[in-house]
């Protein structure tokens, strides 16, 4: 495809969509699929046929529409209305509603002016729910692949890197390393062979942001990776995706095929000298493979065990070649930065954290689902305005950062959410899972739960983590059973410090975090459980 053809297709498809009387988008992300989205979609398709409206009304699948707790969700483009919990027979009414149908449908209509929708700002998820993830033309109509065209035909690799640096984008995989700097490190390596790897191993329990992006807008991630490939001088990309994410894998396979067919990936992209291919690698269920050096080992077909760093992957990664590893959401931010400019992106967010962050809201919260907010939004806004608060209970803590993060108590609800602030209060941004807990959650048990997770997932390569997580888990179990002593709490703190200081990789280094943060803010719960009588 040439750049002219891309723009032609863009306007043709837009015109085609405008000519349609209506297009009905059924959320076909995993959450809605498991509450009957497919049946709903076929009912709508059947109704279109029965009414003889083919070519005038269309039904299509879409990425996550956000409010997963109200699935299956449907959006009707003609009036922009969003419906939730729609049974197939009511979905069919959307095709040609009469006044009575309208009334029936109105009861299922969700208020898109409600804070859940209105307080969000969508960059990464801009296309999610607006395009059919299985159609390349949809993505192109939404402006897709224009950033790649601009990068390879109008910009030098160095200019692309400068733009990313100017944007202030930081890695969304957890650690928050500045993306532009990482790209520059890889670009500087003289090696003729380099790799770009997309980390889609999303292992944190309670996190499903990356999955939604891959399911809802797979081309966006491919485009981001291709731009990265151009900037750093790589010809090959890999997406390492969790084996459990069947739908995401299928959508990615489709997207890669489509992009290759249209020569948006492959040799001579946009008829320039730039070539880039993307292959999938399917994970096999090991949390530690999200760690970059373990991920590399796993792509090479080995046991996914981390190794000593340095050398860091930008110097020596996949097959000892310079390798750029970024998270799914990081790559998804790249195309809009190239189209809109780094300054635009940098105008959103806080001093040190730019842009938006996608969070997966879950737990004891009224609206579970996927949200995207500007960096610096307070937890109070996220939990109470967007999330609708804690149903029938009182907010106790929000857990962010999964097994590497911590529990944030009520007193910090007004802290702006960005990388630094969360670290300062003993938690971390992590990848974006946000679990709300109410009074019924026992914080010692929560700490035990995460420690059990780390214990199971420890790869066993280094002793502090392999043995330390078992010891800490034993102590926490003892405490939850009410058999612990004050000495146990002291020991927990000592072991925690040891793991943090001496473990080889991030898993062991951060495993004590949930314990440390609950000890810091909910120490009384530990003390109340001591065998010496603190218990009621």
């Amino acid at each position, binding site marked *: 495809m040439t750049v002219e053809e891309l723009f032609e297709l863009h306007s043709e498809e837009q015109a085609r969509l405008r000519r349609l009387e209506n297009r009905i988008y059924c959320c076909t992300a995993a959450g809605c699929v*498991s509450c009957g989205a497919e049946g709903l979609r076929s009912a709508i398709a059947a109704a279109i046929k029965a009414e003889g409206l083919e070519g005038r009304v269309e039904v299509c699948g879409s990425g996550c529409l956000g409010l*997963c707790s109200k699935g299956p969700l449907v959006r009707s483009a003609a009036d922009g209305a969003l419906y939730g919990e729609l049974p197939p027979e009511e979905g069919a009414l959307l095709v040609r509603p009469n006044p009575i149908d309208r009334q029936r449908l109105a009861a299922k209509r969700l208020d898109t002016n409600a804070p859940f929708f209105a307080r969000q700002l969508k960059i990464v998820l801009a296309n999610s729910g607006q395009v059919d993830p299985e159609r390349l033309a949809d993505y192109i109509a939404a402006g897709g692949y224009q950033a790649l065209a601009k990068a390879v035909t109008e910009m030098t690799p160095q200019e692309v890197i400068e733009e990313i640096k100017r944007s202030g984008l930081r890695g969304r995989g957890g650690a928050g390393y500045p993306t532009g700097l990482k790209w520059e490190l890889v670009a500087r390596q003289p090696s003729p062979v380099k790799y770009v790897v997309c980390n889609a191993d999303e292992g944190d329990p*309670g996190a499903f942001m990356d*999955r939604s992006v891959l399911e809802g807008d797979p081309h966006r991630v491919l485009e981001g990776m291709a731009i990265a490939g151009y900037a750093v001088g790589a010809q090959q990309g890999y997406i390492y995706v969790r084996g459990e994410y069947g739908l995401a894998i299928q959508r990615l396979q489709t997207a890669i095929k489509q992009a290759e067919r249209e020569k948006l990936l492959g040799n001579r992209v946009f008829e320039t000298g730039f070539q880039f291919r993307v292959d999938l690698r399917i994970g096999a269920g090991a949390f530690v493979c999200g760690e970059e050096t373990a991920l590399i080992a796993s792509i090479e077909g*080995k046991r*996914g065990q981390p190794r000593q760093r340095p050398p860091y992957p930008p110097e020596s990664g996949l097959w000892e070649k310079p390798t750029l590893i970024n998270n799914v959401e990081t790559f998804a931010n790249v195309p809009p930065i190239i189209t809109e400019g780094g300054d635009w992106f940098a105008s959103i967010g806080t001093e040190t954290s730019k842009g938006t962050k996608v969070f997966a809201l879950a737990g004891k919260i009224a609206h579970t689902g996927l949200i995207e907010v500007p960096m610096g939004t307070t937890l109070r806004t996220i939990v109470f305005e967007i999330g609708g608060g804690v149903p029938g209970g009182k907010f106790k803590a929000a857990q962010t950062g999964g097994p590497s993060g911590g529990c944030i108590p009520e007193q910090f609800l007004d802290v702006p959410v960005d990388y630094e602030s969360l670290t300062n209060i003993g938690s971390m941004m992590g990848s974006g899972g946000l679990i709300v807990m109410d009074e019924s959650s026992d914080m010692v048990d929560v700490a035990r739960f995460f420690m059990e997770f780390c214990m199971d997932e420890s790869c066993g390569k280094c002793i502090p983590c392999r043995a330390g997580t078992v010891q800490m888990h034993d102590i926490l179990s003892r405490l939850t059973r009410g058999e612990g002593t004050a000495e146990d709490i002291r020991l927990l703190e000592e072991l925690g410090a040891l793991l943090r200081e001496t473990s080889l990789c991030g898993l062991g280094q951060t495993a004590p975090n949930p314990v440390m943060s609950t000890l810091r803010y909910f120490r009384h719960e530990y003390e109340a459980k001591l065998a010496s009588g603190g218990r009621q």
Partner: protein
Amino acid sequence: MQDNRAKFLERAMSRHHYSGDALIEVLHTAQELYGYLTPELLKTIARKLRLPPSRVLGVATFYHFFSLAPKGEHSYTVCLGTACYVKGALGLLETLERRCAKAGSTSADGKVSVNTARCIGACGLAPAIIRDGEIVGRVTPEMLEAELSTLGIR
């Protein structure tokens, strides 16, 4: 049937040019075809990819996804992600373990395999399970009890 499976596996290996780097992909294919990985399969794969058998076994046992034992007729995987945990996943696991088998094993009659998963990403539907490959959300212990009874499990 038997021959076909061997042929498919052979094709998967040749597609990757019998490269040891493709071990995980090949194991994925083998498990898809045969349901689980037998010692004979592992040995064949090691020979064809020219890898030491210890490396193949090491990889097969490192990843949770690979199973070295046959699976039951039905499989139940309880999500133990944080959201499901907070919403009572342990009660579901307890029910399955009491009536069928311990997590990670198959009931003695070969009917049901019970497993746990770290997070299946269906947090909006917590607590969720995967039943025979399909995600089922908002499960209660009572629902499970009833379902197991219809499967004829006491």
